[in-house]
């Protein structure tokens, strides 16, 4: 069928006219032309028949397809590969901090306070109180005047200290201290005086 010059403008508009896609003004123009043009009217009827056949065919084809789990199958095909764990954790953390900032700040502040309180107790267990110095050491030694003893301090080769007390009788009244000591030493050295036998100094 040859297309007249007047119909060349309207032939491309017939298909959207059939599908109802033309704006109102163009639809009215096409209807006026169809009312006056037998060829375009026949063309429009052919287009309607084709459209109807296509619709029936598609419906028959769709009836034969099982659309059960359709959405899951589609999503499975479009879901991207699972990112690495580190990436997922990073995204989770950033989103959590972004959308739950208040909760995070509260939790971190509470944890910091608990650590500040617990840290002294933890550290205390490692370094016993009072034992910052490496070795035990004697700072001073003295005796009470009435005790009549004198302290003697020995340092052993391994660095430990032995504090021993020896009898130190008071000086006899009226005698010099040296004489009293000499008398004592003489008494100690006389053969009749029993010598200390272990256990005594």
């Amino acid at each position, binding site marked *: 069928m040859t297309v007249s010059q007047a119909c060349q403008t309207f032939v491309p508009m017939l298909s959207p006219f059939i599908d109802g896609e033309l704006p109102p003004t163009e639809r009215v123009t096409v209807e006026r032309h169809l009312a006056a043009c037998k060829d375009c009217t026949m063309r429009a009827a052919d287009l309607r028949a084709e459209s109807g056949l296509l619709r029936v065919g598609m419906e028959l084809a769709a009836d034969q397809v099982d659309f059960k789990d359709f959405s899951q199958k589609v999503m499975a095909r479009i879901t991207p590969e699972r990112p690495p764990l580190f990436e997922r954790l990073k995204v989770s953390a950033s989103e959590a901090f972004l959308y739950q900032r208040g909760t995070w700040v*509260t939790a971190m*502040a*509470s944890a910091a*306070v*608990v650590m*500040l*309180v617990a840290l*002294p*107790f933890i550290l205390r267990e490692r*370094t*016993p*109180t*009072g*034992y*910052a*110095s*490496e*070795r*035990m*050491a*004697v*700072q*001073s*030694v*003295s*005796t*009470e005047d*009435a*005790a009549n*003893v*004198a*302290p*003697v*301090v*020995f*340092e*052993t*080769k*391994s*660095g*430990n*200290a*032995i*504090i*021993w*007390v020896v009898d*130190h009788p008071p*000086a006899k009244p009226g005698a010099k*201290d*040296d004489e009293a*000591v000499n008398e004592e030493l003489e008494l100690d050295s006389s053969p009749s005086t029993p010598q200390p*036998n*272990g*256990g*005594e100094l």
Partner: protein
Amino acid sequence: MTRWVVVVAVLLGGAALAEEPKVEVTADVIHASNAGNASDPALSAVKDEFASAGFPFSSYKRLSSQKLPLTKAKPAELKLPNGKTAVLELEDIKAGTALVKVNVGGTKVGLQLGREGSVFVGAGAHGNGQLILMLSPGASKRPRRAPAGAHPASAVGVPARK
């Protein structure tokens, strides 16, 4: 919730700061004599120490051992078998080091606590020998043995006799 956590934390911190300092000292009472050669094997290091210092005891026996907690407010008393009493008092803690005053039957010793070593204080006669009060760190570390070939130690403090 945060407010309560802060309140509890402040209270606990205050309690921790306000707690009085306490130190522990291990006090062993040892009986040394020349009655026989039987010695507690655990005291072999003590025997070596005393032998190196010129003390000729042949027998060492541990009569008691206990950890004494010391605070400034509460000194510890240790009754000895010979009727004497050893009093240990925490004098101060300076730069983490405790200074303890020990009084054994009239003998007063100012002691600086340390992580190693021991101090032996003669506590007088008892039975056929002598009592020795051995003060060690709270972890009950035994004194180190004197190296082989040790000679009698020289006295580091001898009161001048007039």
